[in-house]
């Protein structure tokens, strides 16, 4: 029997946001039919880690099922032998009989209690393991995976789907087992007592099956439609609320209201039919229960008058009929929940099955220390097959040199860095660090020698101190402040209300874009890497602030191989080498002066500034 209270406290299942990119029927079919058993097996593997406890639970389910059969039977006996007649039950006196009945009635709830609390422990542990596995798997997936997916949809899998599994495992698993046991147990006892009445009770079963099929055949597509409408609506709400500033500034409130109303109406319609028809299930069950009750009482009465059954048997049947349809009822109720939980688990496993970032090759090694000599030899790369983002890039950076990457937007600067840090693997050519091919160095180890300040700053929810410490987890508070001072973040931090302990909420709200960058720079300072990558690091820092941190950056870059991507050419003039990229190719290569003397693309770019200066005068 489902525990209504537990059920009540379970968080309402948030609507699963349908993935609109996967709306093709082909995909759905594959998802439905193919993996059901596979998913169950995988869930079982998680559960099976607690075999002993699981066995105990099953034993308890068995006992409680037997007891719940015995209870009504004894009531029937009581009516026939002790209340209506003068018989005895196994020769027991009335008092003793009640003691036995009391024992049955005591043990029945007890076994139920034990089975459910043990199962909860198993279920929650399973969910915990799945969560942790899923999470750590996410961190093994290649970066492009995250670009391809909507974040909301991923989020929904990791949270909603997981919750779905959690709730279902708690109760449904044992419930289904006990339902089946009780079903067969009841059937057996009923047959033994009166085959005729059993048959009567069973008249409702085909009716039930027909009714259920009629309903589920209709609800399936309706729910699917409602779900996709709901996903659409929720997505719309999320997007328009996140973009509220734009909507306001563009005065588009009426338009979004209109579009919202359309979506809202769609969901009202599909929701209405889905709910109406699915709402018939319990009503149908209830009515068939009533019907079988009437049949047993009426026909049983007639049989009793004819002396074919006793009153006690009628009473046992009335109760059994209820007990008999209840497991069916439960099964029916649980069925959709179960299906949706399995589908949820499947979606979770789907992510776990995503191919991980190429594993480090077997012989990949760890380097304790690197000098920072970087060499690209004829490196080519394309994100998709047949498309080249970079072609034939060759250059060599000595340890401690500063390499500036210059070129128009989309020329492949960021891609080059991503190859170096092995977010992607080059499709042609060789990249070496200290003479070793980077493919032979463990990814994590490679990256641990690098520090990045990325174009999109990301800050975690937590204090400023914690955010900086992210660069090196064992850093002391003094070291953190030191790094912040170097990055010129210290002065603005101490001016904040809570200073270093100011809590940045999601995404670093509360401080400006430029301040976020300063924190990111401080974080990189703290990491103390051999190779430093500044990817547009200063693009949103104002020039005044940049002048101030330039000194710190220079100090940081000293002795490290640094790759700098920047649009402001003046910031990279001192670079040892400037790589000018255009359309994925290395167009020009040399120092600032060399490139100016060359009079090519770079000098054009650089003089563009000068020209504008003249035009401005």
């Amino acid at each position, binding site marked *: 029997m489902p525990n209504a209270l537990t059920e009540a406290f379970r968080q309402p299942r948030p609507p699963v946001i349908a993935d609109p990119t996967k709306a093709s029927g082909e995909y759905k079919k594959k998802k439905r039919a193919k993996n059901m058993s596979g998913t169950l097996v995988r869930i079982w593997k998680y559960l099976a880690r607690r075999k002993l406890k699981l066995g105990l639970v099953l034993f308890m389910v068995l006992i409680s099922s037997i007891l719940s059969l015995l209870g009504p039977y004894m009531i029937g006996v009581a009516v026939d032998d002790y209340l209506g007649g003068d018989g005895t039950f196994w020769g027991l006196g009335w008092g003793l009989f009640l003691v036995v009945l009391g024992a049955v009635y005591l043990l029945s709830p007890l076994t139920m209690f034990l089975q459910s609390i043990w199962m909860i422990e198993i279920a929650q542990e399973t969910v915990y393991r799945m969560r942790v596995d899923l999470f750590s798997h996410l961190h093994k997936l290649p970066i492009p995976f995250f670009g391809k997916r909507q974040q909301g949809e991923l989020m929904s899998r990791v949270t909603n789907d997981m919750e779905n599994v959690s709730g279902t495992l708690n109760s449904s698993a044992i419930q289904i087992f006990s339902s089946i046991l009780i079903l067969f147990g009841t059937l057996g006892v009923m047959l033994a007592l009166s085959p005729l009445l059993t048959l009567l009770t069973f008249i409702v079963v085909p009716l039930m099956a027909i009714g259920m099929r009629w309903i589920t055949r209709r609800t399936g597509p309706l729910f699917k439609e409602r779900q996709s409408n709901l996903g659409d609506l929720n997505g719309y709400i999320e997007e328009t609320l996140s973009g509220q500033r734009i909507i306001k500034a563009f005065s588009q409130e009426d338009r979004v209201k209109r579009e919202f109303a359309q979506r809202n109406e769609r969901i009202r319609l599909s929701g209405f039919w889905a709910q109406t028809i699915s709402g018939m299930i319990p009503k149908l069950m*209830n009515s068939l229960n*009533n019907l079988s009750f009437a049949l047993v009482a009426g026909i049983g009465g007639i049989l009793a008058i004819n002396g074919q059954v006793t009153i006690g048997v009628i009473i046992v049947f009335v109760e059994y009929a209820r007990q008999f349809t209840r497991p069916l009822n439960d099964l029916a109720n649980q069925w959709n929940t179960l299906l949706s939980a399995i589908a949820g688990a499947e979606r979770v496993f789907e992510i776990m099955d995503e191919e991980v970032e190429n594993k480090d090759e077997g012989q990949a090694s760890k380097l304790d220390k690197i000098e920072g000599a970087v060499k690209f030899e004829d490196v080519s790369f394309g994100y998709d097959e047949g498309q080249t983002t970079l072609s034939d890039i060759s250059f060599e950076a000595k340890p401690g040199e500063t390499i500036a990457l210059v070129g128009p937007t989309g020329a492949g600067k960021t891609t080059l860095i991503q190859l170096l840090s092995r977010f992607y693997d080059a499709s042609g050519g060789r990249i070496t660090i200290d003479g070793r091919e980077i493919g032979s160095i463990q990814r994590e180890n490679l990256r641990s020698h690098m520090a990045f300040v990325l174009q999109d700053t990301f800050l975690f929810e937590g204090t400023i101190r914690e955010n900086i410490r992210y660069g090196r987890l064992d850093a002391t508070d003094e070291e953190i402040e030191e790094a912040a001072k170097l990055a010129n973040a210290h002065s603005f931090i101490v001016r904040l209300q809570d200073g270093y302990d100011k809590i940045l909420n999601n995404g670093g709200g509360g401080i400006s874009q430029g301040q976020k960058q300063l924190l990111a720079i401080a974080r990189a300072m703290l990491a103390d890497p051999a190779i430093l990558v500044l990817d547009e690091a200063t693009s949103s820092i104002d020039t005044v602030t940049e002048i101030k941190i330039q000194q710190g950056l220079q100090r940081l870059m000293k002795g490290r191989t640094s790759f700098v991507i920047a649009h402001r050419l003046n910031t990279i003039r001192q670079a040892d080498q400037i790589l000018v990229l255009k359309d994925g190719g290395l167009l020009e290569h040399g120092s600032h002066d060399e490139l100016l003397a060359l009079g090519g693309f770079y000098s054009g770019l650089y003089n563009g500034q000068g020209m504008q200066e003249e035009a401005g005068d």
Partner: protein
Amino acid sequence: MSLVFAFLKKYRAASLLALLMMVIELAVELAQPYLISKIIDDGIANSDLGVVWMWGGILIVGAVFAFAAGIASSFFASFASQGFASDLRETLYDKVQSFSYSVFSRFATSSLITRMTGDVTQLQDTIFMSLRFMTRVPLVVVGSVVMAMVVNFKLGLLLALTVPLLLVFVLWIMRRAGSMFKNVQKRLDKVNGVIQENLTGIRLIRVFVRMKHENGRFAASSGKLMKNTVSALRLTETTMPFIMLVMNAAIVAVLWFGRADIAAGGATVGEVVAVANYALRTIGALSAFSWIAVTFSRAGASAQRVKEVLDTQNGEFEQNRAYGQENGASAAAFAASRAERSHRAAGGTGNAVVEGAVEFRSVAFKYPTSDIKVLEDISFRIGAGKRVAIMGATGSGKSSLVQLIPHLYDRDKGEIRIDGRSIDEWDTNLLRRSIGYVPQEVLLFTGSIRENIAWGREEASFEEIEEAAKIAQIHETVEKLPNGYETLLGQRGVNLSGGQKQRLSIARALVRRPAILILDDSTSALDLATESRLLEALEDISCTTFLITQKISSTRAADLILLLDEGRLIAGGTHDELMRTSELYRHIHESQYEQGEALHA
């Protein structure tokens, strides 16, 4: 609750019908044990076949009747609850859209989303369940006890004593469980928070090789979630067995006293059976009781959250705006004359009624949620069609300043005048329609590139979209994409580079043919060549442009340069003027140009 009833009013008929159907269904069920006692006592005991036939027939007719009523109740309840949810959602959404931006930002976006989705669904489900099922539970409990007492007062009294006791127990458990589950929810939020953060910051985590750290953090919070969940569930799982235990004891007592009464002639077998049957029915209902109470309290919380949004008053300036609309006659007349003039002046540049002259007089501003003065004593004046460049260090108030122009926030002191008229007197919609705003953080919507640009003005023709894209220097890039303007952008436009997204959002602003264009550092991710082409192209369209920038190259052509520092205007003028008067400006200039070049210039 009043909120629920207010929205349910429209569906009063359907709700009442649903309830009525439910009561009919219930009445049939409650009669069953009574009828069976009749069959036993009057039929079987007297060997009267006719009586058995009659009651049996009534039972069957009742079952059919109950079925019809059940189906009907499902239909009516669904109609009422879906209609309710739909109306509520729409009212909520419209309300939120009517918020001024400063009121809007008082709520966390995520919490608004939850209120509109989760909370509304919660209320809808509660209504649906109430109409069909929940209201029935207390009726079952009370009805069973009453019926049991009708059948046999003395035996029924046993139930009447036990049931309140159990109710108290259930309520006690509920209260405890309530706080425990609140804890669970907090833990769950925490777990989800970690996931969200990790998904957003995945690149950073990779490059800093913090996967182990994050895994550890996640395992810790998941572990806590598991522990709390287990202990909360453990508590609630005691409820049902306990109720069964007590009710079972009651049944044993009924049998015990029943036998004595039968022997004494005070009761019949049928009566004892009926009372036991009523007791069994109460077990199920009692456990559902707790569930209902929890659902209701949860729905109450949802209703509270929804109500909070609906009750939120708009800020002062939005009220002014409403006031302005009420006094609409003069405003409309003003707008009309303005429109006319504008058409004459600009030779029909779209439907803009704003010409674009902007004046700030001693404007001061702080965000509603904080005490920090963001802007103080800002005064400047710029004619229509001119370009203003705003420079200043991080956090100096540049973005805040430009956000005041489309009236996203309201100033605290001073006056802002557009075309010589106070911003309060402008209809905000009218004003915003004439402003093209490109915020610092790019926000694109799901849909194609064309849709995203046209988002600025729905009725824009494809030519106009292309033209805007050309000016924004994104046309060529778009053309090169496999699907051109029909290329779909993911959530927030994930498949474009930062610079491309910036240019798209500039095109979106341009397609509005704004009288005032605000570029809030919107060219930061562009390379110099693209940026200068963009700024040149902007020269050709006549609109007042506010350009927040860090680059001297972009400020040179400006008619007015505002130099901000910590919320104060420290210098204002043309490039040449500032070169003469402002040391900071000279300093910035030097940092961006070699001294020699600058001097040469």
